[in-house]
């Protein structure tokens, strides 16, 4: 399992968020040479805060979306990888067909159900949090409709990233101990 992709998204978020802080500081200190040929060149200071606050909120939501999408991809890839065992079924032709069918269908499985597949190793608190994040992510992915707010609590990039890390840690901890038992 490669959690590097998820971590990269989180650190990219920190980079952009801190860049917003630097931009605010440069505007407040009126270092206008830094703003040449950017949208900040003509911007009035009074308009800066609402604009950057909005960008900050938008960025956080997009990062939650990106983190969850990457998590989902990693999880499906892990299961796809394990499904290659089907190829060992005899007769071989049946095994190959089962593999192709399973690999196609795994892409259609509901992510909530995939999360629950790991209820033997990942505790309910972590799985529950991830499902709440999933609902919030769905609200973002469907256009963040202000007239149809999500029926779940909101979240932020750090909570999302930490919950994903926790899921992977619990999942891999158990997988590692199962691997060790084989020897």
């Amino acid at each position, binding site marked *: 399992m490669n959690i590097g992709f998820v971590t990269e998204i989180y650190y990219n978020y920190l980079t952009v968020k801190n860049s917003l802080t630097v931009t605010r500081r440069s505007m407040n200190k009126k270092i206008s040479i830094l703003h040449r040929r950017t949208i900040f060149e003509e911007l009035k200071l009074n308009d800066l805060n609402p604009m950057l606050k909005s960008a900050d909120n938008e960025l956080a939501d997009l990062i939650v979306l990106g983190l969850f999408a990457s998590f989902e991809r990693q999880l499906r890839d892990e299961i796809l990888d394990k499904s290659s065992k089907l190829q060992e079924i005899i007769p071989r032709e049946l095994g190959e067909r089962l593999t192709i069918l399973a690999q196609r269908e795994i892409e259609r499985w509901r992510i909530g159900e995939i999360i629950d597949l790991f209820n033997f190793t990942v505790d309910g608190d972590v799985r529950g949090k991830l499902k*709440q994040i999933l609902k919030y992510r769905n609200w973002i992915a469907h256009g963040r409709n202000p007239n149809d707010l999500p029926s*779940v609590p909101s979240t932020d990039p750090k909570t999302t990233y930490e919950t994903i890390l926790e899921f992977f*840690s619990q999942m891999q901890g158990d997988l590692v101990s199962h691997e060790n038992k084989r020897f």
Partner: protein
Amino acid sequence: MKEVHLERIETFNKRLETLYNKICQWLDELQIEYTRQEKEMSLTEQKNMTYTTKELDIFTKEGESLFCIVPYGVWIIGAEGRVELEGDSGSESLVYLLGKEPSPLITEIESEKDKIIRKKLNGPRQEGWHWVDERIIGKRPLLTKDIFMALLEKIN
């Protein structure tokens, strides 16, 4: 709105009031001259859940904004509420956490070193407002006077 939701909002508003008073007490201890303003604001969360809460604005004696604390929401994944501490250059999130021990990040077989780091050095989590330090994973330090003053520098 359901009774249970109203109770949660009331609790959130009480915790906010305690936070605002605590912060003003810290400013007093540091002999900072300031003026305090509280403004009512309306928040909408989830479906059909609109409620009234208060934002805190602190100004220098010259009337320049020092910082403000803006409620973000009661229903937050993994916390009992969140506010934003906002300054001229940015904002930092504070969340209210209960005293329950957080579930561990790693549940692999624990070495003695793991146990020391997790249980002895971290200690039990204290109920109260905690800073969401985005750079350090797995930590949300309790808001203290020292952390608050460092955050003021960070957001200004």
